[in-house]
């Protein structure tokens, strides 16, 4: 059995706000195997970004409160000391974000920013680090990498900057890459290039990836497994083909049904999901999706469903099974 790179167990994150306690992540449990791509799909308030920031202790505590376990090759990330977690960040686990312009320091050259993790984590001297940095730029597909080391972020296009972020991410050969909406701000043609790039790198390096997004199309293209989030909880988790084919959870089903589908004959009107995403400060007691679920009954509003079939590869958090719901 492939080794688990990451094993998240009952992760819970809440924030104290003026209006009450915001329960942003409510008991996430999932695993990432070596070389696997797990897509975490969700909308605003689903907890997708916060849960990943929590893994690397990147949330300010307080106001955040983080509970649960996150085992990275057996060691709990959440209880590590500052020094220990700093050795992991950028080194064994890398993270790339949506907006490369704010993730990159505008007043330092790309070379400087690439060399930083190389020198820090791998102890390379200046010349070796510079050579490796140029190599990395080449790996991510930036032309004339040697010259571009001395350029500043604003001299690169959006797509190029994101490639630089990827280069920084893989610089120290991490085991796991977390990409948080990494292509959301990019043009669709650039996005296609970047997705291709990451796929290639994954194969080449045996990299495991957690891909956080709201775009089910992107998910369909790159994921091995999908975790569907809503209102801070996991609704459904399955291998990619199973998820799209079976779509067991009402939210998954409704979400996929609401997407515009290009094609000759399709109804003019979309099947929209009524209502609004939940407010983490005023989370209802039962299933978070109940207010918008066409199959909801009283029990759904008072009792939060557990994950059915927790041991199988396809898990659903619903009081009813597919037969009962869809006949």
């Amino acid at each position, binding site marked *: 059995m492939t080794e688990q790179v990451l094993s998240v167990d009952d992760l819970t994150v809440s924030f104290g706000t003026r209006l009450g306690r915001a329960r942003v992540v409510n008991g996430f449990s999932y695993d990432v195997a070596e070389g696997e791509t797990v897509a975490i799909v969700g909308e605003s308030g689903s907890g997708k970004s916060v849960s990943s920031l929590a893994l690397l202790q990147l949330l300010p505590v307080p106001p955040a409160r983080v509970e649960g376990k996150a085992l990275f090759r057996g060691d709990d990330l959440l209880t590590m000391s500052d020094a220990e977690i700093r050795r992991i960040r950028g080194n064994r686990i890398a993270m790339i974000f949506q907006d490369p312009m704010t993730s990159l320091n505008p007043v330092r050259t790309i070379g400087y920013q690439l060399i930083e993790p190389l020198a820090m984590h791998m102890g390379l001297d200046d010349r070796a680090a510079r050579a490796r940095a140029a190599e990395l730029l080449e790996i991510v597909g930036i032309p004339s990498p040697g010259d571009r080391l001395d350029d500043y972020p604003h001299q690169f296009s959006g797509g190029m900057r994101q490639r630089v972020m990827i280069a920084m991410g893989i610089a120290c050969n991490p085991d796991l890459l977390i990409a948080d909406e990494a292509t959301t701000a990019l043009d*669709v*043609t*650039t996005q*296609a290039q970047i997705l291709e790039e990451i796929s290639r790198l994954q194969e080449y390096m045996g990299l495991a990836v957690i891909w956080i997004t709201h775009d089910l199309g992107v998910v369909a293209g790159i994921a091995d497994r999908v975790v569907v989030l809503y209102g801070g909880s996991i609704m459904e988790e399955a291998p990619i083909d199973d998820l799209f084919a079976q779509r067991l959870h009402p939210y998954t089903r409704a979400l996929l049904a609401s997407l*515009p589908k290009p094609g000759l004959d399709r109804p003019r009107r979309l099947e*929209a999901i009524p209502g*609004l995403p939940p407010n983490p400060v005023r989370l209802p007691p039962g299933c978070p999706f109940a207010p918008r679920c066409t199959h909801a009954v009283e029990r759904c509003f008072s009792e939060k469903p557990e994950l059915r079939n927790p041991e199988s590869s396809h898990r659903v958090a619903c009081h009813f099974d597919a037969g009962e719901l869809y006949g």
Partner: protein
Amino acid sequence: MAEPLVEITNLQVHFPVFSNGVVRRRVGNVRAVDGVSLTIGRGETVGLVGESGCGKTTTGLAILRLIEPTGGTVRFDGVDVGTLRKDELRRLRRRMAMIFQDPYASLDPRMSIGDIIAEPLRIHGLSDSASERTRRVADLLDMVGLSPDYRDRFPHEFSGGQRQRVGIARALATEPDFIVCDEPIAALDVSIQAQVMNLLEDLQEELGLTYLFIAHDLSAVQHLSDRVAVMYLGRLAEVAERRRVSEGLKHPYAESLLSAVPIPDPVVERTRIRILLEGDVPSPLNPPSGCRFRTRCRYAIDRCASEEPELQRLGDGHVVACHLYDPEE
């Protein structure tokens, strides 16, 4: 096609770029829109699609004369918009409206949503009394699915999707004929996007509206539009009817754009052939000579560097700006 409502001929919007010296000289032009011709029929939805820097938003703004075109003409219901005086233009604004992309920035944070929606009524003196105005605002709120009880609330109390509905209600206040929708759903949650798309469709049917739907999301554009126009670096690459888009677009850029759109179906994704483009979009300050797309086009021939392609007619209103489809070749 229905009678034309908006006729754009050779529209040009160039922004001058100045040097940073003691004496600022003009060193060039950003050719944001560089010769776009398009006709929008009454009751039609035309989708305008393209990636960052292609000039689609600038085109929308120029049609409404919120940005002054530097060349070409825009005719609205037969009237040349560019020649109108200030007061005439103001009157014309009753017939055309805009819905903006960012629901968090397009509403004045200091005004209640009732006042925001009533503003166009005030500007044009469309209601005889305050109570009539109130009634009209209530009707508009109702029309977009918001309860009139919330008229005194402020934008920050609402979600993105709700704010966008307020923006739509505001656009409808003067009973316009034509609405430019600039990326109206891009900033919204996925589960809300469908709601707003349905709303736009319903309103079009109910009120006989004409839309120019500007977006980068090809799926949404295909869904809502009757015809789709693809822009690249300030010029039109292709214009085709919706059905045609599903069958496959002809322009090399449009083709790769379509192939880059992710489809929420893993089987399709695994088996499809993606046409990946090399490199980045050239700068609009200095577009390539001849066909602007030639630097990234795998079919480029010599003629592409020397001659800018005209829009070739392929029948059924389908036009492509590419030498490959020029009968002379």
